């Protein structure tokens, strides 16, 4: 985006905020609080906790795969954009990857706001048509025999990928396990990193 366009958008955002404030429809402090929340308090660390719990607790894993929204709420996460959260389990035979082809639907409470590549037209259109190539470009090469399932997020359903637990992570506690669970692994464009 050019500086000129950036200036234009800056002015329009300021104009909109001031008009809505004058109309008594908007409290700037509420906007501040929302922005602060999404910048600082919510992000992939939440999803990583969910994944780590599922790795160490088989009963939790079953609940998570049965009803993602409810199991994730057990850990205190929920709210906008997660009313119907479905958890997709990666296995040696099946790899899941998530996209929103129409816009940018994404499970905010467990992953925060989406990265720019997730919103980019190239990812949104290509990952459906040439999944393996896109994943390889992003650094994830899957063996020929692995079935890849692409899930298109919608207004109703948001997805979280439960990555495979890295080999060599036996005996690690939940906190240590959560560390290498990246945002990209929970979208399905990467693996959880090996034990750290």
């Amino acid at each position, binding site marked *: *985006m*050019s500086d000129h*366009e*950036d200036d*234009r*958008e*800056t*002015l*329009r*955002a*300021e*104009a*909109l*905020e*001031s*008009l*809505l404030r004058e*109309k008594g*429809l*908007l*409290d700037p402090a*509420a*906007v*501040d609080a*929302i*922005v602060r929340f*999404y*910048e*600082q308090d919510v*992000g*992939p660390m939440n999803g990583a906790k969910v994944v780590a719990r599922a790795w160490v607790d088989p009963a939790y894993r079953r609940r998570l795969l049965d009803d993602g929204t409810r199991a994730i709420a057990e850990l205190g996460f929920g709210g*906008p954009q997660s009313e119907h959260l479905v958890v997709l389990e990666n296995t040696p035979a099946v790899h899941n990857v998530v996209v929103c082809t*129409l*816009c*940018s*639907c994404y499970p905010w409470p467990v992953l*925060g*706001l989406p*990265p*720019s590549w997730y*919103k*980019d*037209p190239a990812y949104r259109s290509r990952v459906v048509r040439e999944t393996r190539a896109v994943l390889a470009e992003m650094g994830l090469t899957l063996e020929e025999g692995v079935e890849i399932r692409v899930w298109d997020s919608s*207004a109703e359903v948001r997805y979280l990928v439960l990555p495979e637990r890295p080999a060599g992570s036996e005996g690690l506690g939940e906190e240590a396990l959560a560390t290498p669970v*990246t*945002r*990209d692994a929970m979208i399905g464009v990467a693996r959880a990193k090996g034990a750290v």
Partner: protein
Amino acid sequence: MTVDLSGPAAPPRRNGELVFAAPWESRVFGITLALQEAGLFGWDEFRERLIAAIAAQERGNAGWSYYACWAGALEALLAARGICSVAELDVRAERLAMRAPGHDHRR
């Protein structure tokens, strides 16, 4: 201006990426959520506008900006609902642009 990119006061980032690329992006995001939480419109109504704005931008020749689509979707929705017209917004933005040089824009 230098920004501490790694210390405790580092800007918010997600796996190495800033959540918002510019302050106006965070404002339009926050305004949208605040209005929706206040019940001025439903999330699905906004999402439909966002999808339309993204599709329109992808058909056009202008550069890709996700939050420009977002801002356009919000403007269109507020205008359609009679909450804030585009003309009203144009006038206010123009007035703000006329401020004396050196005036600090909000953030």
